[in-house]
């Protein structure tokens, strides 16, 4: 059986940054790239299933340009069996709906038994891609999953979703399904040095939307649910900044504490 794990190479914006010339995103010179934090957990969920059952193949897939290959290498280094990267420059403005359509096309080709996406991406945090993907595929889905009980081949899985305030909902879901995995479901492993070395020489399959039977109008700007008109820096809050040496800062904090709390 096969588990498909969609992963994103997320952008970590540096402390001081500038916007791109067109004002529609952060200037890429000011970002570091990293496997989306949530995808560490979904990949780990897949790898743990693989280790406890025979014959499971874990396939990582990303929709991203050359720079996204690193995210896939990280997955391979941790134990994913295969990696697929889909890209074409026309995906440059892709929103979660378009990404989901591409991922669904990959799923149609790979025919997995389970899809484990992340609950959200750490950079743009749409919390939408996994559920949109399931909808394009016509599959059942459950979002914000913190526990999973699943045996390969079973007709259903039991999952727990984490709701507001730490309340959990236990539910049964028909399989195959798309689950979006939440932080804390497990403790993701680190890639071993040996794994990292081996991953360097493993192939990453590269596809275009066209290879997947998608047409320009399925993935171009007009297919997106939204378009960023502009990005801007949030207005600074009202915070009074406490300057000085740490000793002076601490003194002021102590004074505020005593003033507010009394004593």
């Amino acid at each position: 059986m096969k588990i498909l794990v969609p992963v994103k190479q997320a952008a970590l914006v540096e402390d001081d940054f500038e916007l791109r010339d067109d004002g529609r995103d952060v200037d890429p010179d000011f970002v570091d790239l990293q496997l989306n934090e949530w995808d560490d957990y979904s990949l780990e969920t897949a790898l743990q299933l693989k280790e406890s059952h025979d014959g499971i193949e874990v396939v990582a897939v990303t929709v991203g340009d050359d720079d996204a290959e690193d995210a896939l290498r990280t997955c391979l280094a941790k134990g994913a069996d295969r990696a697929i990267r889909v890209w074409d420059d026309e995906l440059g403005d892709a929103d979660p709906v378009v990404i989901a359509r591409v991922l669904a096309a990959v799923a149609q080709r790979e025919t997995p038994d389970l899809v484990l996406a992340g609950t959200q991406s750490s950079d743009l945090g749409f919390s939408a891609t996994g559920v949109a993907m399931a909808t394009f595929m016509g599959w059942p889905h459950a979002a914000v999953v913190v526990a999973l009980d699943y045996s390969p081949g079973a007709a259903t899985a039991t999952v727990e979703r984490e709701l507001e305030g730490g309340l959990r909902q236990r539910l049964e879901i028909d399989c195959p399904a798309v689950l979006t995995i939440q932080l804390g479901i497990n403790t993701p492993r680190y890639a071993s040095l040996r794994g990292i070395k081996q991953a360097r020489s493993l192939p990453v399959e590269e596809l275009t939307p066209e290879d997947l039977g998608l047409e320009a109008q399925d993935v171009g700007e007009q297919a997106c649910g939204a378009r960023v008109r502009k990005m801007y820096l949030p207005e600074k809050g009202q915070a009074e900044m406490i300057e000085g040496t740490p000793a002076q800062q601490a003194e002021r904090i102590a004074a505020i504490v005593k003033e507010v709390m009394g004593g």
Partner: protein
Amino acid sequence: MAQGILVIAEQRRGVLSPVTQELIGAARAIKNDVGGAVSVAIIARDPASLAEGARLDGVDEVLLLPVTADEFQPDLHVAAAMQAVSERDPSLILAPHSVDGWGYAAALAVQADAGFATDVFAIQVDAGEVTAVRGAYGERAHALLEFPGRDRVLLALRPSAFPAAEGAADSTVTELSVPETAARSRHLEFIDPPSEGGVDIPGAEFILSIGRGVGEEDNVEEFAELAEQMQAVLGCSRPIADAGWLPKARQVGYSGKTASSCKLYLALGISGSVQHLAGMKHVENIIAVNSDANAGIFNVARYGVVGDMFEVSKELRQHFE
């Protein structure tokens, strides 16, 4: 042509979630600019029992959509919402960016072929054109979104970002029938969070909270001591609880506790993610210490210190011996 606003109410355990009033408040504020009526869809096994809570100022019509499940179920929820969409043909759909919202909003957007944005905290309407604002990169930038060529847009609204609607109205109540739909998942039970073990975040007046800036588990102890010295209750952000460095009962935020009685919140090494802020941004006195001058936490803090939490902690201890 599509017209009007459709609000998708949220309910759990037979009670409307507070976010429902916020969605209605948001709808009311832009109603005249959008044009058309405001309808609120209640999707539940017994929607009539919840209708009163949605008959609020600005609401023209409450739609009752009975489904065959007591609790949120995505297939039924989307089928019901689609029924309301096809009968009322709204130009704007408002859904909550809540945990259940994450479970269906994207599916509804795809099925309704609507323009779509999540985690929206401001809506503008200009000459009939809807634009929306959301955060990006951990709230360090804001993005203004447009929906070119769309005559229908679904916005999932951030909880606590819009003022709740108040005041009863004599909105009409209409029942629609939902086409028979297979529910491909089944609610089994709710599991309440484990008991607090003496930790009382909601009751605490002074909370000292640590985030990932603490670096490693061994460093946690020094801040536990600092909190004790300062007579503060020790809180934390989610990664600290997920890692098991502190118990879950100390986690402040959307999926943790709310600092309900807090007068003073000292946030050390916490970036200010939306979900953390959900539990503490209302506190009147927030002091944030963060090494990154652009950290989002400074946008809600009353006092800010750009600096190293370890250095500040070391100095602070001398004032509370």
